[in-house]
C-alpha cells in the first residue's frame, strides 16, 4: 500500500464510479476530497527515497513512480485545489444554465484531470507522461468547452500540436536510448543532434501546454470563457503539468546537455511572458480575461526561474522558489477564479466596471480575491512572496539583473491590474447587488487564498520539502530492490 499508486487509482475509481452513478456522482467529492488530501499528506510525509516500480518491472522497460519534492508539493496543492473547487462546484453549479450534460460530465472529467495530474507529477517515464498529458489535456479542453466552444476548439488544436511535438521527441528518445525513463536518461544522455532535437521538440510542445509566451494564445480565451470552477482547474493545474515535465527534462534527464544559452531562451521567454501577460492583463476590461492573462504572466516566472536554478552555485533557493511559485500560483489562481466567478455572478456582468459595491455585498469573497491577489503580486506574507523572494535572491546573487528587474517589475504590474480590479469592488454599486455567498461557495476560495497566504509562514518547511530528492541534491535515486 502506497500513496504513490492510490493517488492515481482513487481518482480513476471515482471517475468510474461517477459514470456509474450518473447524476448522483456529485456527492462523491465529499468522500474524495478528504481522502485525496489525506493521501497527499501521506505522500508528503513519506521518507525521502519513496519510489515505486509499477508491476515491479525493472527500469528500462517498466515505469518508475517517485515522490520527489516537486511531486509532493504539486500533488498536495492539486488535492487542495481540486478538493476545494469540487466542494465549491457542489453548491455552485459549474455548468452553463440548462446544460445537464455538462453538469453530469463535469465530475468524471475532474477526476480524470486529477488522476492525470497526479500520475504526471509522480512518474519519471516520458511516455507515461505523454499519456498523462493527454488525460489532462482532454479533461481541460472538455472543461473549457463548457464555456466557449470556439475557444476550446482552438485550445484543442494547439494542444494537440503540442502533444504531437512532445510525442515526436519521445519517439526520438526511445529510438536513441531505448528507454524513456528520466533517471536512466540522466546517465545516458549525450548532446547529439537527435537528443537535442528531441529535447527541442518536447520543450516546444510542452511550452504550448504550459502556455508560455508566445505560445499562450489559446489560454486567455479558453480560461476566461470557461465556468469559474473549470477555469480554476485549468489555470491552476492543467498548465502546471507541462511545467513539471519540463522540469523533469531540463533538470533531471538532460542537465548535462542543456547549455546556458538554451536556458536563457527559456528564461528570456519567461521574462517576456511576465511583461507581456501583465501588459495584456492591464488592458482587459473583463475580469476573467484579466485573471487569465495574469496566468500568462505567472507562468512566465516559472520559466524565468530555469536559468536561475541552473546558474546557481547552491540551487536550493532558486529551485524552491520555482516550485513554490508553481504551488502558490495554483492555490491563489484557483481561489481567484472561484471568487471572480461568484463576484461576476453577483454583479450580473463580466466587466470589471460591473463590480462596484461588491466589497460591501460579499466581503468574504472579495477578501478571498484580495488575498489571492496578494500572493500573485508577490507581496508578503504569502507563498507568492516567498517564491519571488527566493528567485529574486538567486537572481541578484548571480548578477542576473535583467531577471531581477523583471521579477520586480512583474510584481508591480500585477499590483496595477489586480488592485485595479479590487478597487472596482469598492466603488459604489450601480445596480442593487444580489450577493452570492454562503457555505462552501465562499469558503472554498477563501480557504485556498488563505492557504496561499499561510504558505508564506511555512517557508522553511516548504523549502525543505521541495528539496527532497531534487536532482541537484545528490546522487540519483536509489532504486528499490525488485521483489524476489
Amino acid at each position: 500500500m502506497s500513496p504513490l499508486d492510490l493517488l492515481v487509482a482513487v481518482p480513476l475509481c471515482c471517475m468510474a464510479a461517477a459514470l456509474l452513478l450518473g447524476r448522483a456522482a456529485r456527492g462523491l467529492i465529499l468522500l474524495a476530497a478528504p481522502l485525496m488530501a489525506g493521501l497527499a499528506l501521506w505522500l508528503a510525509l513519506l521518507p525521502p527515497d519513496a519510489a515505486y516500480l509499477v508491476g515491479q518491472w525493472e527500469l528500462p522497460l517498466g515505469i518508475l513512480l517517485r515522490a520527489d519534492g516537486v511531486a509532493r508539493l504539486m500533488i498536495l496543492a492539486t488535492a487542495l485545489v481540486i478538493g476545494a473547487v469540487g466542494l465549491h462546484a457542489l453548491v455552485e453549479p459549474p455548468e452553463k444554465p440548462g446544460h445537464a450534460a455538462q453538469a453530469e460530465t463535469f465530475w468524471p472529467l475532474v477526476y480524470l484531470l486529477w488522476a492525470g495530474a497526479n500520475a504526471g507529477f509522480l512518474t519519471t517515464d516520458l511516455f507515461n507522461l505523454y499519456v498523462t498529458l493527454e488525460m489532462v489535456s482532454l479533461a481541460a479542453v472538455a472543461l473549457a468547452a463548457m464555456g466557449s466552444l470556439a475557444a476550446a476548439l482552438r485550445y484543442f488544436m494547439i494542444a494537440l500540436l503540442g502533444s504531437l511535438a512532445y510525442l515526436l521527441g519521445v519517439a526520438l528518445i526511445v529510438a536513441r536510448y531505448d528507454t524513456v525513463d528520466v533517471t536512466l536518461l540522466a546517465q545516458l544522455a549525450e548532446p547529439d543532434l537527435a537528443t537535442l532535437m528531441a529535447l527541442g521538440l518536447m520543450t516546444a510542445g510542452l511550452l504550448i501546454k504550459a502556455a508560455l509566451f508566445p505560445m499562450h494564445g489559446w489560454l486567455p480565451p479558453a480560461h476566461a470563457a470557461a465556468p469559474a470552477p473549470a477555469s480554476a482547474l485549468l489555470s491552476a493545474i492543467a498548465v502546471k503539468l507541462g511545467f513539471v515535465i519540463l522540469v523533469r527534462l531540463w533538470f533531471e534527464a538532460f542537465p548535462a546537455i542543456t547549455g546556458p544559452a538554451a536556458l536563457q531562451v527559456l528564461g528570456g521567454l519567461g521574462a517576456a511572458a511576465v511583461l507581456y501577460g501583465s501588459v495584456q492583463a492591464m488592458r482587459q476590461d473583463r475580469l476573467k480575461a484579466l485573471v487569465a492573462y495574469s496566468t500568462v504572466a505567472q507562468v512566465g516566472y516559472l520559466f524565468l526561474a530555469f536559468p536561475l536554478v541552473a546558474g546557481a552555485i547552491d540551487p536550493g533557493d532558486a529551485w524552491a522558489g520555482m516550485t513554490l511559485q508553481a504551488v502558490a500560483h495554483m492555490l491563489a489562481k484557483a481561489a481567484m477564479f472561484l471568487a471572480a466567478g461568484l463576484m461576476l455572478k453577483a454583479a450580473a456582468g463580466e466587466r470589471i466596471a460591473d463590480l462596484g459595491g461588491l466589497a460591501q455585498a460579499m466581503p468574504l469573497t472579495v477578501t478571498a480575491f484580495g488575498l489571492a491577489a496578494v500572493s500573485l503580486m508577490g507581496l508578503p506574507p504569502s507563498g507568492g512572496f516567498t517564491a519571488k523572494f527566493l528567485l529574486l535572491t538567486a537572481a541578484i546573487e548571480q548578477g542576473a539583473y535583467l531577471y531581477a528587474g523583471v521579477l520586480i517589475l512583474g510584481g508591480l504590474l500585477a499590483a496595477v491590474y489586480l488592485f485595479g480590479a479590487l478597487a472596482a469592488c469598492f466603488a459604489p454599486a450601480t445596480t442593487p447587488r444580489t450577493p452570492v455567498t454562503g457555505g462552501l461557495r465562499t469558503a472554498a476560495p477563501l480557504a485556498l487564498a488563505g492557504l496561499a497566504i499561510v504558505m508564506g509562514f511555512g517557508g522553511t518547511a516548504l523549502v525543505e520539502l521541495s528539496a527532497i530528492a531534487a536532482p541537484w541534491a545528490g546522487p540519483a535515486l536509489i532504486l528499490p530492490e525488485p521483489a524476489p
Partner: protein
Amino acid sequence: MTADLTLLLPLAVLWPMLLAGLALLPGWGPRMLMLLPLGPLPALAAALFAPRDTPVALPGVLLDGGLDLTATGAIFLGGAAVLWFWAGVYAAVYLRRDGRPAAFALFWNLVLAGNLGVFIAADIVSFYVFFALVSLLAYPLVIHDRQPASMRAGTVYLVLAVTGEVAILVGLMLASFGAGGAIGIEAVRAGLALPSAHPAALPLLIVGFGIKAGLMPLHVWLPVAHPAAPVPASAVLSGAIVKAGIFGMVAFLPLGTPAAVAGNVLTILGFSGLFLAALLAVGQAGAKSVLAYSTVSQMGLVMGVLGVALAAGSAPATVLPAVALFALHHGLAKGALFLGVGLAPLCGRAWRWGLMAVLAVLGLSLAGMPLLAGALVKSAMKDPAGALGAVLIGLSALTTALAMARYLAVLPKAKPRRRPPLLMALPFLALAGAALWLPWLLYADVTGKSPLAADLASKLAEAWPLGLAVLLIAGAVAVGLKPPALPEGDALGPVQRRAAALTAAARAALRAGSRSLRRSRPRKQAVIGEDLDRIEDIFREGAAAAILLLAIAGAVVAASLI
C-alpha cells in the same frame, strides 16, 4: 532661608501661569480680570528679595533648564513687575466692560509670565521659551478690540515677531554650538566672544532682538501694534515687552570683546533710530502712535549705546547698569504716558491740567531735562556711549522734546466734567512717581556713583538742545505750523502693496506653468492598444502556434549547440 527665597524665581513665572489657567475656567473671566494686579507680585518680591546670581535648577523641565537672577536682570524684573502691577490695576478698571475679559486675562497673564521669565532665565532654551511666549502671545493683546486696524496691526506684528523668533532660534543654535553645546546664557555669551563663533550667530541675534526692541528698519510693527492695543496693554507693550528685546541684547551681546562690524552696525542703526523715529513721531496724529515712535527712538538710543560698547569692547559692568537704569526709567515713564492717553478723555478741566502737567514732566524727563530722572539715566548712558554717542544723546533731547510736545498736542480731548476713577488715576500717578523717583534711588547702587556728584551747571549747559526745542515749539505754535501727517508704520504700507503684487504675479506664473505641463501629454495609448490586440490575435491562431513551436524547438536546439 536663602533657598526659600530662590524659589521666588520659579514662582514669579508659575504664578501668572496659574492665574492664566484659572482664566480658562468657565465663568471666571471677569473675576480674573480683577485679579490681574496679583500676577507680577511674586516677581516684584523676587526682584527685591531673591538672591542674585544663584541659579535655580529645574531638573526635567525643557533641557534641564534653570532660572537665575542677575543684578541687571533684577532691575529689569523689578521695573517690569511694577509696570505690570500698575497696568494691571489700571486694566481691571479700564476693561471692566470689556466683552472678552477671560481672553484678556489669559493672555495678559501668559505674556506677563513670558516677560518676567525672559529676565530670569538661566539657559537659552528657557530664555527662548519665555521670549516666544511674550512675543507671540502678545498678539491677542494687540488685536484685543478686533477693530480692522488692530487686526492689520496684529498681522504685521505677528509676521515680524515670528521672523524675529526664527532669527533668534537660529542665532541661539549657532551660538550654543559655538559654545560647545552649552545652554547656559553666560556660557553662550562667552562663546559668542570666541573667534570660533559662527559669524552669523551674532547678527541673527541682533536682528531677532532688534525686531522686538524696535531697531530702526525692523521697527515697523511697533508704531502700528502699540496703538492698536487697549491702553494698559499698550503700556506694557511699550514699557515692558519691548524691554525683553533689550534684555536679550543685554544678555547675549558679548560685551568686553570688541566686535567691530556688529557693534558699528548696531550703533548706526540705533542712533539713526533715535533721531528718525522721533522725527516720525512728530508727524503722527495719534497720541499712542507718537508714544510708540518715541519708544522706537528711545530704544534706538539704548541699542546705539550697546553698539558702541560692543564695538569698543567695553566691559559689561560699565554698560549694563546704565542700560538697565535707562530701561527702567523709560519703561515706567512710557507706561505712565500710555496710561495718560487712556486718562485724558476722562479728565475734565482741572483734572486735565493736572494730567497735562504730570505728562509734561514725564516728557521732559524722557527728553533729559536736568534734575529729572531722565537726565540722570542719560548721563549714565553717556559714559559707555563714547564721545560721539554722548553728543548724540545730548542732541536727542531736542527731538525727544519735539515728540513729547506733539504727544501733548494730540492728546485726546476730554469730555466735559469727567473725573478719572481713582483706580485709573492712581496707577498713572504711581508709575509717574516711580519713573521719576526710582532712578534716583537706584543710581548709586547700580552705577556706584552718586547721582548728585555731577556739576549741576554743566548739566544745565548741556541741556541746550532742550531749550532749542522749547523755542521751536513755541515758535511753531505761534505761527500755527503743523507737522506733516505721516502714516503709522511709515514704510509699511507701500512695502505691503508691493509684496501683494509680487505674490499675485508669482501665483499666476505658477498656475500657468502647471497648466502648460499638464496639457502636453501625448495620447498614444489607444494606438498601442490596438497593436497589442492584433498581436494577441496572431498568437491565438493554430498556425502561429505551429510556427512558433518549430521556432522554439529550433532555438532550443541551436542554443544547446552553441
